[in-house]
């Protein structure tokens, strides 16, 4: 038995390069159940992070009693993340929404589905009536719905209503991954495979605390590190995360300076001749310009900008430059920071100029933050078009119009899609009048929360919230629709490395809660959306029909699903593209060095990285990419907000291994709650000394936007930087602060700045200027920060270790 709270990564199963990663099956069954009690195992995959780990849901007496990792799955080989081991218990939480709610004055009251949907439809029809009616609708989704739900909503929004105002929480977690992939390689789609961990000789983690965000991927890396001929490891992170502590080289750079560092590293790689001249010549465009730009970033200058030691930068360059099979992973430290797309493109550049793509071990993951983010990008319920099509390519729009049998100009292709922050701006200004939020919680997750609450609470804005619980966002809604969740509905979703899994319905949802797909289909039926021939726009009745329709939409595109079926998925995950020619799926993209940059095929004609200016089709064609990838170059520019005399510190926000997003689920599973019950603030010992702050002291963290209170963990974050986890909102605030009114001093996003990357439009959560004020002594109690992960205290601190005890014991069974 393993206490997977005390040890989130479980026992090691070391292996060597080129060997198969050993199986280790993790199981957790609650309430004393044993495998003998389980009446059926229902196939599914993780919905509490983006790794896509396959597992089976254990059902006894029509109730979920636990989960078990699937031994034969290509992603996890049986392992399960602690959030998945315990998080499913939230399904049974007594405060699940069981009936729809509608607003009566300042209260939400229970009602029936007809009344709730009737209100939404009446308001929708009123708003649609008249020119520009489409522009009153905004849809804000999630990274946790299923493929079928995104595609259905995408068709409703783009062909039923005709609004460009569709985006999701994916904008906060994964928009830069998509933007960087499109910019460099022509379309979205991860080049690599998780099996690259098995073959690589170096791993570089760019702003990616994989140990806490995708624990199973980290287990795989650790198992390589403990085996023969382990890969070297480089970590780029201002915090002393488990990844940074494991790495051979850790660059704790100043927040917001990623682009300067990458320019310096690329310069070193080029100057020292560690690039693949033939690959550059045959498969890339823009090498001369890249050389010109990075030449301005000698190591000494970069060391100054990033506040690093020159020798460490040189060691990092050597680790990257001398590797033969380099694996890179990129996440929020880049995506949610200054110059997000530019810096992420530089990681692509590193792999392009070294020819480190398309073969075992030479891999690149532009990671996703959320479990089904990839599907939102593919299916077009966000700012992308279904099938990774190009907004500016008229033939792509015509394909969709034919597929859906609607007029071309019904599909809002004449303006760029509206990104999340702009949707909220239009709602603030009153031109968006109906905002439908599904499966996410912007009242805790968006920047500058005081503003977001003001927007959502405005009586002129009709807010629909579809969720499992009465979240901070749902509290402000006009109509709340109770949704079924993972285990209570059927659908598919796709991991970072393009592996599609099915998640089957295991049990009935509580009360009158309905699958999100059923809610969207019901809306489409009640709205009576029609196609060009007067027939119903949407004729699907269930998930498998939608999946079959989606396959047609994906045909011939990079994310081709045409040879995948529900039946095949029930025997295991399959990587797209999966076609008649490649019926078993495709492990790696770009194995031949031919990229998706053909003008008729690409997903974007490109942007200027500094301003986000769109480039025109003619300019793109003139580059004659001919299947070559683009090397994009950009000088470093300081972040929109830098420390000042008044706000001398930099705030970065992030995650703990025990919680997901705004804790809607993980905050309702007792093992995870006990492990990380309350927010905290990480302070470097030098800053703590200077400010007279000790472990456990209550601090006030102030930015130009707001104030947060949290207890100090003095630990390994870099000097001048403080860290807050962003998970903690108000629904379970200990002092009873009400979500609607009352004090708002717990959520990290009270402090963050409303600013975003010019290309990906991803908000900048990692760079806000703040100051600290001590409010009270610790009284001898340490802060509630876990001792596991980035918040681990220094050795010998005497702080009691985070443990789960008997309630968290779970077997891990090796081969």
């Amino acid at each position, binding site marked *: 038995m393993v206490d997977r709270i005390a040890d989130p990564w479980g026992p090691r199963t070391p292996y060597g390069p080129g060997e198969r990663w050993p199986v280790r099956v993790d199981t957790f069954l609650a309430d004393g159940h044993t495998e003998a009690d389980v009446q059926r195992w229902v196939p599914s995959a993780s919905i509490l992070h983006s790794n896509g780990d396959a597992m089976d849901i254990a059902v006894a007496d029509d109730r979920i009693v636990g989960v078990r990792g699937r031994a034969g799955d290509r992603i996890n080989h049986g392992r399960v993340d602690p959030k998945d081991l315990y998080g499913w218990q939230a399904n049974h939480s007594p405060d699940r929404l069981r009936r729809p709610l509608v607003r009566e004055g300042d209260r939400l009251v229970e009602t029936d589905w007809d009344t709730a949907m009737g209100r939404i439809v009446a308001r929708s029809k009123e708003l649609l009536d008249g020119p*520009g009616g*489409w522009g009153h609708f905004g849809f804000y989704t999630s990274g946790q719905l299923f493929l079928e739900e995104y595609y259905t909503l995408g068709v409703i929004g783009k062909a039923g209503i005709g609004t460009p105002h569709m985006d999701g929480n994916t904008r906060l977690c994964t928009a830069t991954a998509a933007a960087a992939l499109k910019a460099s390689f022509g379309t979205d789609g991860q080049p690599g495979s998780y099996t690259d961990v098995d073959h690589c000789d170096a791993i570089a983690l760019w702003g990616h605390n994989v140990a806490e965000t995708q624990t199973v991927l980290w287990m795989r890396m650790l198992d390589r590190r403990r085996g023969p001929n382990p890969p070297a490891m480089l970590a780029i992170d201002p915090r002393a995360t488990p990844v940074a502590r494991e790495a051979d080289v850790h660059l704790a750079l100043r927040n917001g300076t990623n682009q300067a560092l990458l320019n310096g590293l690329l310069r070193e790689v080029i100057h020292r001749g560690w690039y693949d001249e033939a690959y550059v010549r045959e498969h890339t465009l823009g090498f001369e310009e890249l050389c010109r730009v990075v030449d301005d970033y000698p190591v000494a200058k970069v060391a100054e900008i990033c506040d690093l030691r020159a020798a460490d930068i040189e060691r990092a360059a050597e680790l990257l430059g001398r590797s033969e099979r380099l694996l890179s992973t990129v996440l929020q430290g880049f995506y949610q920071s200054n110059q997000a797309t530019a810096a992420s493109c530089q990681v692509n550049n590193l792999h392009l100029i070294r020819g480190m793509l398309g073969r075992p071990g030479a891999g690149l993951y532009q990671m996703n933050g959320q479990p089904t983010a990839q599907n939102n990008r593919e299916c077009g319920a966000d700012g992308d078009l279904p099938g990774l099509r190009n907004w500016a390519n008229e033939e792509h729009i015509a394909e969709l119009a034919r597929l859906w049998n609607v007029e071309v100009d019904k599909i809002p292709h004449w303006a760029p899609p*509206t990104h999340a922050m702009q949707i909220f701006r239009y709602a*603030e200004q*009153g*031109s968006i009048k109906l905002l439908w939020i599904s499966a996410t919680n912007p009242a805790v997750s968006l920047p500058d929360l005081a503003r977001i609450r003001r927007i959502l609470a405005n009586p002129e804005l009709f807010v629909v919230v579809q969720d499992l619980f009465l979240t901070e966002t749902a509290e402000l809604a006009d109509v709340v629709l109770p949704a079924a969740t993972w285990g209570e509905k059927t659908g598919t979703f796709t991991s970072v490395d393009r592996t599609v899994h099915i998640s089957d319905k295991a049990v009935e949802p509580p009360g009158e809660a309905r699958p999100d797909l059923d809610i969207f289909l019901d809306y489409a039926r009640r709205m009576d959306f029609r196609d060009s021939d007067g027939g119903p726009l949407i004729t699907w009745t269930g998930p498998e029909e939608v999946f079959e329709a989606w396959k047609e939409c994906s045909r011939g595109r990079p994310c081709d699903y045409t040879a995948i079926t529900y039946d095949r998925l029930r025997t295991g995950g399959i990587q797209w593209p999966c076609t008649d020619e490649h019926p078993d799926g495709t492990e790696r993209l770009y194995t031949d060095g031919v990229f998706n940059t053909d003008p008729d095929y690409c997903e974007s004609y490109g942007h200027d990285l500094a*301003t*986000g200016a769109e480039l025109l089709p003619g300019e793109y064609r003139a580059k004659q990419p001919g299947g070559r990838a683009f090397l994009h170059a950009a000088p470093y520019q300081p972040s929109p907000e830098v420390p000042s005399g008044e706000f001398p510190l930099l705030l970065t926000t992030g995650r703990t291994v025990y919680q997901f997003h705004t804790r809607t689920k993980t905050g309702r599973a007792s093992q995870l709650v006990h492990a990380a019950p309350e927010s905290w603030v990480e302070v470097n010992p030098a800053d703590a000394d200077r400010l007279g702050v000790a472990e456990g002291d209550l601090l006030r963290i102030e930015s130009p936007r707001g104030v947060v209170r949290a207890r100090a963990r003095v630990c390994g974050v870099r000097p001048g930087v403080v860290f807050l986890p962003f998970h903690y909102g108000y629904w379970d605030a200990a002092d009873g602060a009400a979500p609607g009114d009352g004090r708002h001093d717990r959520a990290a996003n009270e402090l963050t700045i409303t600013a*975003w990357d*010019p290309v990906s439009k991803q908000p900048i959560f990692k760079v806000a200027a703040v100051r600290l004020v001590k409010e009270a002594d610790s009284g001898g109690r340490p802060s509630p920060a876990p001792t596991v992960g980035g918040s681990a205290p220094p050795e010998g601190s005497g702080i009691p270790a985070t443990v789960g005890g008997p309630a968290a014991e779970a077997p891990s069974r090796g081969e």
Partner: protein
Amino acid sequence: MHLAHYLGLLHKAQERLGDAYTEVGKAHGEEPDVFHTCEKLATQCRAHAERLAPFARRYAEEAPGEPDRLHSELFAGTRTGPIGLLRDLQDLYLMAAECDICWTVVGQAAYGARDEDLLGVVKACEQETSMQLKWLRTRMKQAAPQALVVAS
């Protein structure tokens, strides 16, 4: 040689455009992308003006009197609201277009004057001005349908 007049025209146009970016950015501070991008572009315009200044001084020594109606007035203050934003961006667009064509004209003159140094400045700056126009067009395309058709 009249090149000094066009250098003066461009110099002033770049300075005015820089000031206009700053003003428009501040006036629409609740559009953070407009605010932050305008700040960046204002800095860029001032850098352009600075790079031109030594050439303007040098050629001024050989120039006859300045012709009439050389400078244009394209900006008379900011507006508010979604249409105000669109209209302000349009002012910036026209001012950037003036700079754009001036770079072309000055570039041609630099060839004629066999002035490689000036040509180098023109080549670097005209690309940035051209990108400014593209950004303004992109942002206006985004704003136009909502501002003109949807907003009440």
